[in-house]
């Protein structure tokens, strides 16, 4: 499990960010004391650091250049300062990414994931499996007992989200939001159409009743 350190002085943001990150499957470390942050980082040895710029004791730029003297850990600046000077500074001092508040959480998570992937490339295969049904993300196909069906972008993403939340009820609104986060702008009606088509395709390869409709709640697999 990847360990992420949040260096941020606003308690609510700290708290909520850690909830969000834990919910996305990361372990989180939050230093409360900013006076010897460098030691904390050395002790904790995180995989990635989220760093604010305006901090008590030492600002984020100083901390960043300090970290770079002993480690190459990926650093994302998360800040409300948004002038281009700040952005330039953060890049010059060795920051890997720069996100301004208020941020879109899906973008934040996506950037974290892509940085982690780049830094600690584990030979991850783009496959997802659930009850012998396999999703091939690269080729956008679903497989069941050697039967394949081609999926459109929308259908693939719908299945990915359902697979990720297997066993839970997925509200339609969450599903639509997930699709929007993946730049597929479909509305509620289009979602129904896509689900119907997806069920047809699954039936053709021998998977019946995978996606259940929970009345007034959403879908579930």
């Amino acid at each position, binding site marked *: 499990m990847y360990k992420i350190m949040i260096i941020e002085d606003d308690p609510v943001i700290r708290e909520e960010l850690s909830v969000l990150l834990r919910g996305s499957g990361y372990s989180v470390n939050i230093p409360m004391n900013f006076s010897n942050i460098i030691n904390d980082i050395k002790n904790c040895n995180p995989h990635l650091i989220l760093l604010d710029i305006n901090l008590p004791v030492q600002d984020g730029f100083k901390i960043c250049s300090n970290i770079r003297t002993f480690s190459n850990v990926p650093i994302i600046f998360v800040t409300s300062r948004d002038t*281009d000077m700040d952005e330039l500074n953060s890049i010059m001092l060795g920051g890997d990414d720069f996100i301004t508040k208020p941020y879109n959480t899906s*973008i934040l998570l996506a950037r974290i994931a892509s940085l982690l992937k780049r830094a600690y490339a584990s030979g991850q295969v783009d496959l997802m499996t659930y009850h012998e049904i396999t999703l091939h993300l690269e080729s956008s196909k679903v497989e069941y007992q050697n039967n394949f069906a081609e999926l459109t972008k929308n259908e693939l993403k719908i299945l990915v989200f359902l697979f990720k939340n297997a066993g839970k009820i997925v509200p339609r609104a969450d599903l639509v939001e997930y699709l929007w986060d993946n730049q597929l702008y479909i509305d509620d009606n289009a979602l129904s159409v896509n689900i119907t088509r997806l069920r047809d395709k699954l039936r053709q390869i021998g998977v019946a009743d995978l996606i259940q409709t929970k009345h007034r709640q959403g879908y579930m697999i």
Partner: protein
Amino acid sequence: MSCRDYLKDQIPCIITHILSMVGFTVFMSAVNIDKDIICILLISWALIVIFYIGICYCFRYRYFKQILLQLDSLDKKYLIAEVMDMPTREDDKIYYNILRTSNKSMIEEVSRSKRERGEYKEYIEQWIHDVKTPIAAMQLVCENNKSDTTRKVMAELEKISHFVDQALYYARSENVEKDYLIKEVVLSDMVHAAIGENKQLLLQNHISVRVENCEYTVYTDEKWIGFILNQLIVNGVKYRSDHPLLIFESCSEQSKVKLLIRDNGIGISASDLPRIFDKGFTGKNGRTGRNSTGIGLYLCKRLCDKLGIGISAHSKQGQGTTIELSFPKGDFVKVWG
């Protein structure tokens, strides 16, 4: 100073001479001096006076002309007393000192208001950065506790952060040149980011969004364009009609790349259209209770002008509006390395 004006000023002097001449003639006649001699004396007297006034006029004319020239070449006219030569005439010196004193206090006043304005602007920027932290916190709280209620709150939060951005960019729009970073950006990346920032607003209002053919690369500042796109999306939502639709598409022409933002909203009447980029202009749509401020498009136009991007609007009332952004194709030579 024209000759006539100068003569007007010299009237008391001329009258004095004429009166003296009359007195002189009376006196000379009384002591039986020959009329011819009186005539010659009067004529030479008059000639001397005219000559004197003429010379004086020439000097004054040259003196003022020089000052006016100096004034003309000055960028900030109120600095004239600082660059003017010290006059030699005593009455000029008095005026000169008055001018200097008044200008000095004026310059102080100007720099004081400039300083105050700068401080206020700094405060506004600081305030905006401070207020973004609680907005981000609220957004995270909503994100972690998703329900229909928090979705509504998030849509409102998107609006708040949009207004906050508007204030920030208004404060900054004076000196865009101090804060920009030209990068190579793909149009679709900017469009998707802007849609993402307004996700809840678009979803709550059931707006269909389509992004078509936006894979062109342009050279511009991502942040400023992001703000402009946000503004255009918010407008699209605000002035929507039934079955609202928002389409982003782009095309490449010889010297520019065009990005079109098209909606099928209520449109803009032909009489309002030429003025929509004016500051404070709200038009017919604004008067029908849609909370128009007349700031948004004005800011867009201003930022576009500073970034060298063309912005124009086409609209038919009742059918929708198309805003066109045209990015110039740079003459940059790409260096592979």
